[in-house]
């Protein structure tokens, strides 16, 4: 019996890329080469990784810190930078209250410090830049989506791309200065004059889904579980096919 079993159900959204295990299984030294404050709570860290195998927007890596007694702590972080050949990658980290790893980055890390990374990892949330992409993110959930926006811009890709990004306030909107016409920000606590305050609604999502380009949108959702559930319901309610929705939840 060698035929492939296919479940009698619908989802099974295929991964967007073939993933090789070799690059992902090796820990490499990464040297902090730049630190840039994005918002009061989020900071971007540029890392020099000479052996970086390259990545696609939407992929993540595993990052490890080691104490003098050999104790290690590791976390997964999305890549914020677009793929390029500079030998550098960027992460944007929220300062999590009591966060073991993010706390080190926000209170101790300096240019020149070394950490370890392995990756890029996973092909499910990757966007190679081929299909039209509708991106919905909240808070630091915008990080892997920004890699897609930057990639789209750097390569002047023809595939349509739209970003709906939710933040508590303009001050807390990560990458605020980088957005262009592709982006609609939504503010939940305070907003600039004339901009309504409130969470993402069908009024934001439905017109974009209804205006899908040929072939339809590939939807990418990233944020807290509460945001992911909310955004996915809005997408489904607007008619976006369930098997064209990819979700990455914090956790």
């Amino acid at each position, binding site marked *: 019996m060698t035929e492939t079993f296919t*479940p009698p159900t619908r989802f099974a959204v295929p991964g967007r890329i073939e993933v090789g295990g070799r690059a992902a299984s090796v820990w490499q030294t990464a040297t902090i080469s730049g630190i840039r404050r994005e918002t009061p709570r989020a900071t971007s860290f540029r890392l020099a990784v000479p052996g970086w195998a390259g990545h696609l927007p939407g992929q993540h890596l595993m990052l490890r810190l080691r104490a003098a007694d050999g104790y*290690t*702590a590791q976390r997964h972080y999305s890549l914020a930078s677009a793929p390029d050949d500079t030998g550098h990658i960027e992460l944007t980290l929220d300062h999590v209250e009591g966060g073991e790893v993010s706390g080190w980055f926000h209170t101790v890390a300096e240019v020149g410090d070394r950490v370890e990374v392995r990756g890029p990892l996973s092909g499910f949330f990757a966007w190679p830049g081929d299909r039209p992409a509708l991106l919905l993110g909240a808070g630091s959930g915008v990080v892997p989506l920004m890699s897609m926006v930057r990639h789209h811009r750097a390569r002047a890709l023809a595939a349509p791309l739209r970003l709906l990004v939710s933040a508590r306030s303009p001050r807390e909107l990560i990458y605020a200065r980088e957005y262009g016409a592709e982006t609609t920000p939504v503010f939940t606590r305070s907003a600039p004059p004339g901009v309504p305050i409130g969470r993402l609604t069908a009024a934001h999502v439905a017109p974009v889904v209804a205006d899908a380009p040929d072939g339809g949108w590939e939807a990418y959702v990233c944020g807290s579980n509460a945001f992911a559930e909310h955004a996915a319901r809005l997408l489904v309610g607007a008619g976006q096919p369930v098997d064209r929705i990819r979700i990455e939840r914090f956790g």
Partner: protein
Amino acid sequence: MNVTRGFTGRARPQGASGASGPVLPPGQYDARDDWPVLSAEVTPMLTAEEWTFRIDGLVTRPRTWDWAQAQELPGSVYEGAVHCVTGWSKFGMRFSGVPLDVFLAEVRPDPSATHAVAYSHTGYTANLPLADLTGGRAWIAFTQDGRPLAPEHGGPARLLVPHLYFWKSAKWIAGLQLLDHDQPGFWERNGYHARGNPWEEQRYSGD
């Protein structure tokens, strides 16, 4: 391997002799009160009345159970930890359900069956060696901490294989297909390890 300048880390949950508290698999941290949700697909609206569970493939008597039939089977409880490949472990979980051994005894696996693909009502899949699904180490779980599983945690019923990383414990479980070979499931095709044993830190293919 470099020591990270200025990094001390949390109080050590493991290692020192005489330390109390549960043991974490390598590279994991204690999620404490959190129970993160990490499904990659839209949470389905699936009621208990709509739920079914089927075992098919290399078995003598393929069968489908509905909710009422599954509830009548002899149940048992798993008390302990679960371990997510993203890094968190959660201790003190208390799942109740029906051991897979009970279902498998009814369908009678063929001696040639070595692996299974577990599939969800969403179409999510995960592959497992049959040996990881037998011997009282796997369940179809209906409740956690005495309450029905929430939809986002796989309710009304999920596979529970707590000795492997939690992505193997397919939410909204719809069935098992028994095979004579290993066939990568959803995450396994996306770069994750074929077996996923947390104690050997089998996170990604190549680990």
